[in-house]
């Protein structure tokens, strides 16, 4: 394995995460097992104090994970210069069998940690602390996912070989190969776009009726269909090339780094939408979250639709 400065940085911070997350985990476990709000023993008071420590550590990890994830994506992109055949992060991700699961796991963990923080904030609003044990139980699960992610990341970087050729996104995302991905990509754009805008419209409707369960469910559908249509359809208009389906090249300077913007907006919007369905917020909080979610999701739809429209206006035809 080669030690580029980026990989060293990721390793140092991952190491920090492991240490602190383990401390938080041990405390969380104790709380799940022994916490008793009615007890007046000094052990109980110590546990109450420890709950603050775990919460602080979890918040720290989450807020550092965000710039670190962006940095991770940037690292993948920069590694594409060293791996023969790779021209963007897609090649690096596919260079090992760990790349894709690692990416999914990282995004999943970001969602879980964000969710934990939301849950924690809600929990602290009520004297009875209704989510106390639940949130620490959740963290116990999240801890193992975090460790899995870090281990996977180290293994992936260790397994990268600068001497073996990798695929570039043209090969991975082509419509002529035999994978599931190519089947999805080959589906008629009318169907995909119909689903995309359809789900979005349904979201607006459920927003108007303030039905949080349906809205939350729609957000899950929305994030999936958005990613699919981004790769299959909208991406090609950003690249102005009908065969360029890569979700990673968007992150490069050639396209003004629009990828970062789109992904962040999409994830924020759907995250807020999704949590609406799981946590019982009070009215004011609920309104706020509905607004934020719809705003970000609409922003995503607007920006992503802009590209094909712009192309049509400029050229008079579709791709």
């Amino acid at each position, binding site marked *: 394995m080669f030690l580029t400065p980026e990989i060293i940085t990721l390793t140092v911070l991952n190491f920090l995460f492991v240490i602190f997350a383990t401390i938080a985990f041990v405390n969380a476990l104790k709380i799940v097992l022994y916490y008793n709000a009615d007890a007046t023993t000094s052990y109980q008071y110590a546990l*109450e104090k420890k709950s603050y420590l775990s919460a602080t550590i979890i918040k720290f990890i989450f807020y550092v994970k965000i710039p670190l994830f962006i940095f991770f994506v940037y690292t993948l992109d920069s590694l594409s210069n060293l791996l023969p055949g790779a021209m963007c992060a897609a090649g690096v991700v596919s260079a090992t069998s760990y790349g894709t699961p690692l990416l999914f796991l990282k995004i999943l963990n970001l969602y879980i940690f964000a969710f934990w923080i939301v849950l924690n904030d809600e929990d602290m609003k009520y004297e009875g602390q209704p989510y106390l044990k639940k949130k620490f139980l959740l963290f116990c699960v999240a801890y193992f996912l975090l460790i899995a992610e870090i281990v996977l990341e180290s293994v992936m970087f260790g397994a990268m070989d600068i001497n073996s050729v990798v695929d570039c996104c043209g090969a991975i995302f082509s419509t002529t190969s035999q994978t599931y991905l190519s089947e999805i990509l080959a589906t008629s754009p009318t169907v995909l776009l119909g689903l995309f805008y359809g789900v979005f419209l349904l979201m607006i409707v459920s927003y108007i009726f303030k039905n949080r369960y349906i809205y939350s469910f729609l957000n899950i559908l929305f994030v999936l269909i958005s990613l699919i249509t981004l790769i299959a359809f909208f991406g090609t208009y950003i690249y102005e090339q009908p065969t360029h389906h890569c979700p990673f090249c968007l992150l490069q300077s050639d396209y003004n780094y629009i990828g970062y913007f789109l992904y962040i907006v999409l994830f924020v919007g759907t995250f807020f939408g999704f949590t609406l369905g799981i946590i019982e917020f009070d009215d004011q909080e609920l309104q706020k979250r509905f607004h934020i979610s719809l705003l970000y999701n609409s922003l995503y739809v607007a920006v992503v639709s802009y590209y094909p429209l712009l192309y049509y206006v400029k050229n008079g035809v579709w791709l």
Partner: protein
Amino acid sequence: MIEIKNVSKIYDGNIVALQDINLRFKEGELIILKGVSGSGKSTILSLIAGLSKPTLGEITVDKKKISKLPDHFAASYRRDNIGIVFQKYNLIPTLSVTENVLLPLFPLNLPRELMKEKSSNVLQKFSIEHKANVIVKNLSGGEQQRVAIARANINDPKIILADEPTANLDEKLSLEFIEILRELKSKKRTIIIATHDPLFFDLDIVDRTVSIEHGKLL
């Protein structure tokens, strides 16, 4: 409005600070807790302030059970309902009078105008507005005392707790302090003072004197 029912406080190592205390305080009363150091009177104040929790028993303030509140709720309760005057004032010497007085409200992130309003109100009430921007360590003992009391009153608390407030004061300042107490009492505050200063024992404004020895009421 303050009810202490069957309260015991036992620290690690089986140190019994309080044993089966039962007390009731009415709104607007001025109560003296009398006893030597280590008798447990500071512990009672601590419990009423929500700074510690009883090992046994229950404390109710204004119909609200405060003994089992989680820390962040206990702190909010304390901030909104309790004003504490310490023996050594416990002001932050390098901050100004205004900053010291507003210190309890810092975490609330209130708008500046509101903060200014609150601080000038309370500084006026205790006659130190003219020193609003002076750094506390440059004040005289009496002035610092008034700042400490002003800080305790910033949120218009219903209950004032004072722990040996006159222990470090000369007679003149002690008497000044008692005058301030008189004023506070006239505003219907419930005032509980833990002290063994004889100046308080035959005071007219004192409604009740409670004696404590070795953690038990006498």
